[in-house]
């Protein structure tokens, strides 16, 4: 252990003293600033100009990166492989989508000031009760945190209390997101069914289709990723984080030492779900649509492979993995769409068989000063 707990530092300040966090934040800030400058300052025909399309694409990647960090928090530091984090991501996205739908007001196709278009289309007479309040930004943004958080709390409370862990937990998280996907596909749910929520116009009074709003969302995504990263680092570096790592490596032993394992698990799980919700909320205005396919088990498990590729229990590895895989996905689906699933499938196999510690593990192997104590023990998940 190289960075033992320093009681002189508050848990919130501690991450900033870490070398890895400093490097990560510096790189992130530089990247975001660079993209902003290249987008704004350079003329559109310059070779170095970053188009708004690219800015939005990178904003999307940053949202994915935040989701990956959330997954890494529970998988890397708690030993819980959640195959249903896409559900929290999508719930956050839907909360934001509902706000954006209400912002359309009477500018929709049917011009109904109260009901979104799809409800008019389905002959609904009035707004369902769970849509109340989403016309107010503060309420919607609160819901971005609360909706996934509440689901994670109820689900986690039940699961951790009965000590459902390991593979079982993975499978039922997958079932959870699958059930939610089926539910959101239903028109009767009042979330737009198959088509989801789309045709957004404004966010906080800014027109979503303008370059300025898109750049703003990109910067917001970068800031959210930085904050999410710091929160995760703070948790990991705190005493609670130490206990959670202990739970990961030897759950029974931690319990016998007197720690309330299920409370630690529940806390970390809920925080992670909220982070995923924020990622989803920033993702939706950038891609312009949210539909039930975000709930698909495939998406959730894809997120896990980003983390696995980057290297679990490093956090920055999750970010690297998310960026690499999603960039590759953009390239592949553009050049040869048929090959993408082959590549993704091969990635799953190769990473797990040949690269158990991910890219972060490779980096750590090269640089002797990289810390390694956070990498999980081999039997951690057995």
């Amino acid at each position, binding site marked *: 252990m190289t960075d033992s707990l320093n009681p002189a530092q508050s848990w919130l300040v501690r991450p900033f003293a870490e070398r890895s966090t400093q490097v990560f934040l510096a790189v992130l800030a530089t990247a975001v600033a660079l993209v902003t400058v290249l987008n704004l300052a350079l003329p559109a025909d310059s070779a170095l100009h970053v188009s708004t399309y690219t800015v939005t694409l990178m904003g999307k990647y940053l949202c994915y990166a935040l989701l990956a960090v959330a997954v890494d928090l529970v998988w890397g530091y708690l030993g819980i492989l959640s195959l249903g984090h896409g559900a929290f991501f999508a719930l956050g996205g839907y909360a934001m989508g509902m706000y954006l739908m209400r912002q359309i007001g009477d500018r929709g196709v049917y011009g109904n000031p109260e009901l979104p278009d799809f409800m008019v289309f389905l002959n609904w007479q009035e707004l369902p009760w769970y849509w109340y309040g989403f016309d107010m930004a503060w309420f919607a943004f609160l819901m971005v945190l609360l909706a996934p958080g509440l689901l994670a709390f109820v689900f986690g409370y039940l699961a951790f209390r009965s000590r459902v862990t390991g593979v079982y937990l993975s499978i*039922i998280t997958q079932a959870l997101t699958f*059930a939610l996907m089926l539910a959101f596909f239903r028109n009767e749910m009042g979330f737009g069914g198959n088509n989801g929520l789309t045709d957004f116009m404004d966010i906080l009074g800014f027109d979503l289709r303008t370059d300025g709003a898109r750049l703003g969302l990109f910067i917001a995504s970068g800031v959210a990723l930085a904050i999410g990263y710091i929160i995760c680092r703070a948790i990991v570096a705190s005493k609670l984080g130490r206990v959670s790592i202990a739970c990961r490596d030897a759950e029974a032993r931690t319990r016998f030492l007197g720690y309330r394992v299920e409370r630690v698990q529940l806390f970390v799980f809920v925080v992670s779900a909220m982070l995923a919700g924020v990622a989803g909320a920033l993702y939706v205005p950038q891609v312009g649509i949210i539909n039930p396919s975000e709930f698909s*088990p495939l998406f959730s498990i894809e997120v896990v492979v980003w983390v*696995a590729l980057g290297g679990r229990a490093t956090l920055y590895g999750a970010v690297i993995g998310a960026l690499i895989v999603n960039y590759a996905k953009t390239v592949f689906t553009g050049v040869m769409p048929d090959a993408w699933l082959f590549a993704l499938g091969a990635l799953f196999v190769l990473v797990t*068989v040949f690269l158990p510690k991910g890219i972060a593990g490779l980096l750590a192997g090269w640089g002797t000063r990289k810390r390694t104590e956070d990498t999980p023990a081999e039997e951690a*998940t057995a």
Partner: protein
Amino acid sequence: MSIPRSLSQLLIVCLLSLLALAPARADDAQAQALLEQLADAPYAQKGRIIGEIAGSGDERARQWLEAFANGKLARVEASGQFVIVLENRGRNWTVADALSGETIGEISRRDLDSLRINNALRGELDGILSVIDLTVADVGKRLAAARDLRGGVDAGSFERIGTLLSAEENPDVRAALEEALAIYRVEALGDIAAVAVLAGSLNTAARAALTGAARSDNAQLAAAANRALESIDQKLKLNNAAKTLYFGISLGSVLVLAAIGLAITFGVMGVINMAHGELIMLGAYTTWGMQQLLPGQPGLALVLSIPAGFMVAALAGIAIERTVIQHLKGRPLETLLATFGISLILQQLVRTVISPLNRSVVTPEWMSGSIMINEALSLTLNRLYIIGFALVVFAGLMLIMRKTRLGLEVRAVTQNRAMARSMGIKATRVDILTFALGSGVAGLAGVALSQITNVGPNLGQNYIIDSFMVVVFGGVGNLWGTLVAGLSLGTINQLLEPWAGAVLAKILVLVFIILFIQKRPRGLFPQKGRAAEG
């Protein structure tokens, strides 16, 4: 009687002398005489002659009367020969001799003289035609005719049927006839005694008659009818329950088939194989491939697919085990991810090599159709076969696990690998064989599923979550648990469907399992003792 000469109704003869000389049968003379009477009598008397023809016992009577009712019985003007018009389009009509039944050929319609009929007669004929089959010797035909009569009895045929009933000996036919008569008696005569006959009948006509009677002014009749309706509703409810149970067991057996292979690889070996669904898909595609190889023999192809599907999936399973799973021993979550990657590759492989579209697999004749238990309950054959197949596969696996050397070794290796190896068991070989067995069974499931669902690249994905749910719900490592879990989940799903809809029922079942796992993390039938700690 005079025959109007208007073109549309008039028919004239072209005589074929050869056929006119056809050898006459003994009763042909009588038949010819009857038909002549039918042709020449005035409308008022035709009814009586029809009755005579019907009562003559001649097996051709039905043919004549049917043709007559349809205006297709005609007389060749020149020869007086009676013919049945087979094809009446154009100038020349194809006709057959009414007595011998032989096709004569084409005759100009000007040479034919159609026997004319009016609506009153047609109504009478319909009644007689429905009864005429009741006189044939074949019991099956009589029964079918008697069943068809229910709701079709009228004043004209009522008495005739009554006479036939008293002569009838077969109990089934008698029951059907009694029901038919009772419907008429309730409907037209308001006969209270007849209501009792209809109690418990599943026939829609009987139900309609009773519903009508229940609304009648006669309080006694209405009360009796209501009681009878209640008994019918009771019976219908019972039948509906049986139907739901059948569909539930059928869906359950599909789940069992899909999950039983997983119960071996996941439950017994502890390997999370997310590519299990794709092994099922391979089995289904093997069936499709077999049918492409043996065109025109879907049945044979299906039977051959059973071993072929097993082999294909088992070989794929061995390949997966050798290349990936053996390197990830003791790391279940990594195994999960790697096998998920394999499932993506297999799906895309099928999409690229075969087609992204669904392939159609033919259902052989002996598997299509259904068995009718009673009028409210019929069981589709393909589902029945799949239930049987699931049970056979289950029994086979049980035998292998309990009674063979392999089963013994598998159980030994899973309980204590090191100890088993020190006893001389080749653990690696057991791993391969067990995984091949579980994968092969997935292939068998695919062969069965190809008969009831679309065979496409997404086939496996649709079953993987369900399969894991079944295994986890039943208790990992317990084949009986898988059977019970599969059947009960299928039944629960079917019970929920009528009031929740298919999708919501599925969601509710998933939520139910999620909650159930919280309550009993080790499933319905948890393993006890040493195996539980593994």
